[in-house]
């Protein structure tokens, strides 16, 4: 392995992490402004032009917050939990290509870390499946019954909706005939999979919103029932890390949805100007993020038993049905 290649990988990894970190900061502002507009308010607009410095102000405020560790807490795991929560959100984008291959200074570059591996989709599922640990550990280590309830709820919820999430991925995998993310994007050159897989896209969106604990599925932190759920005892930067993980996961899910169902970086005139790829992807991701915020502004929270019943009795059978229908059509039409 040459040093140049190693440097390239380090830079790519840093870029992916910066996308999540920078995206997190401005997604909070985006969400607050959009929510405010939907509720006929103005939203934060004091810090800087259009409130653009609000994330900076929030960050400074959180740094100077007092860090409390409850007496009942398990100190080691209490400190470790926010860190464990952030890691999956940072690494999940490794298999998502941000643009097509480009040739610069006689060398070929790909905008992505490992988009060509043959288990790319499984990697996404694997990272999603270990994302629950941070929340569970936080809930248990806080030594608080509300936090523990939040942790227990999130375990049940995330394990249940992972199945539907995996089944939603099966449609694009079958259509592309590969688990490599590159191949799935290539398969969407003529037609996006959202048109061939409308049911799969719907199942993916619902399951993903549950998986990242966003409203209307934010049971683990239901304020009215559980104070703030698993992060009730956290303050300062440790709380900020949970916040970052939640928004990082929103960004990651939007990237994954755009890539698996909306053609990823594909768009018109891509072969002439390959640098349009990241711009197309960015537009799709922002549209999906707007959708997630819109969802939060519109729907009230589900009741916990309704959520579990919905996941197991409606979403999972629908996912299986979608797989069967896709299989039959592929056999009849011939892929």
């Amino acid at each position, binding site marked *: 392995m040459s040093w140049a290649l190693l440097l390239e990988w380090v830079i790519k990894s840093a870029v992916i992490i910066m996308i999540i970190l920078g995206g997190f900061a401005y997604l909070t502002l985006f969400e607050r402004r959009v929510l405010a507009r939907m509720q006929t308010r103005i939203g934060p607009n004091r810090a800087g032009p259009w409130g653009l410095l609000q994330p900076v102000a929030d960050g400074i405020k959180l740094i100077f917050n007092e860090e409390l560790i409850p007496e009942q807490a398990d100190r080691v795991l209490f400190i470790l939990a926010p860190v464990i929560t952030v890691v999956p959100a940072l690494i999940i984008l490794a298999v998502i290509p941000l643009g097509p291959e480009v040739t610069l200074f006689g060398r070929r570059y790909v905008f992505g870390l490992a988009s060509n591996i043959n288990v790319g989709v499984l990697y996404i599922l694997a990272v999603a499946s270990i994302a629950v640990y941070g929340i569970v550990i936080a809930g248990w280590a806080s030594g608080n019954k509300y936090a523990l309830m939040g942790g227990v709820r999130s375990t049940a919820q995330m*394990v249940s909706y*992972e199945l539907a999430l995996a089944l939603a991925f099966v449609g694009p995998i079958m259509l592309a005939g590969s688990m490599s993310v590159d191949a799935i994007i290539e398969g969407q050159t003529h037609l996006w999979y959202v048109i061939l897989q409308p049911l799969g896209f719907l199942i993916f969106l619902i399951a993903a919103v549950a998986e990242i604990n966003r409203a209307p599925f934010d049971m683990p932190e239901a304020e009215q029932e559980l104070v703030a759920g698993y992060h009730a005892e956290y303050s300062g930067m440790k709380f900020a890390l949970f916040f970052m993980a939640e928004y990082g996961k929103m960004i990651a899910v939007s990237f994954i949805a755009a890539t698996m169902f909306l053609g990823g970086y594909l768009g018109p005139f891509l072969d002439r100007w390959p640098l349009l790829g990241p711009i197309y992807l960015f537009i799709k991701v922002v549209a999906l993020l707007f959708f997630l915020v819109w969802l939060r502004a519109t729907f009230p929270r589900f009741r916990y038993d309704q959520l579990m019943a919905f996941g197991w009795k409606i979403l999972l059978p629908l996912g299986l049905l979608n797989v069967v229908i896709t299989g039959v059509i592929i056999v009849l039409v011939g892929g």
Partner: protein
Amino acid sequence: MTIDLVLFLGLALIAVLAAIAMIASRNTVYSALFLVFNFLTVATLYLLLNAAFIAVVQITVYAGAIMVLFLFVIMLLGTERESIGGRIRWQMPLAIVLGLALAGELAYVLLRNGIVQGLAADLSTEFGSPASIGRVLFSEYLVPFEVTSILLLVAMIGAIVITRKLRREGK
């Protein structure tokens, strides 16, 4: 090769330490988390062997599903602290005997066959890819595969039936 060897030794050390910590820990939540750590390390070892599929499945199934349920049950029942009085007395001597037997068997196999080198070299790049595993599962091992799936289905239905009966008796 040397980088692989260094990585392997480091990962193997971490895996063994995590396994020992899992047994030695007095707190069941810590034990479960050490086991998760061990699974993740073993998954990295699979990656070193170019078996990406097995590595990812190991993380998804063992670390992501089974251990999450373990933690769920531990937390739900509130049995974090292991009771000192409830230890089984014949467990320790039996564990020593069985462990020695396993070590003896391993040593015997290694001494008889020698350490096989260069096993991975003559495998094609397709080996262990999802496509090739799927092809083998649905052709050569179709019957065992289907029997296993029926077995799992029966176990699942059994679990559901048992909980339903308990709930009816409770009411």
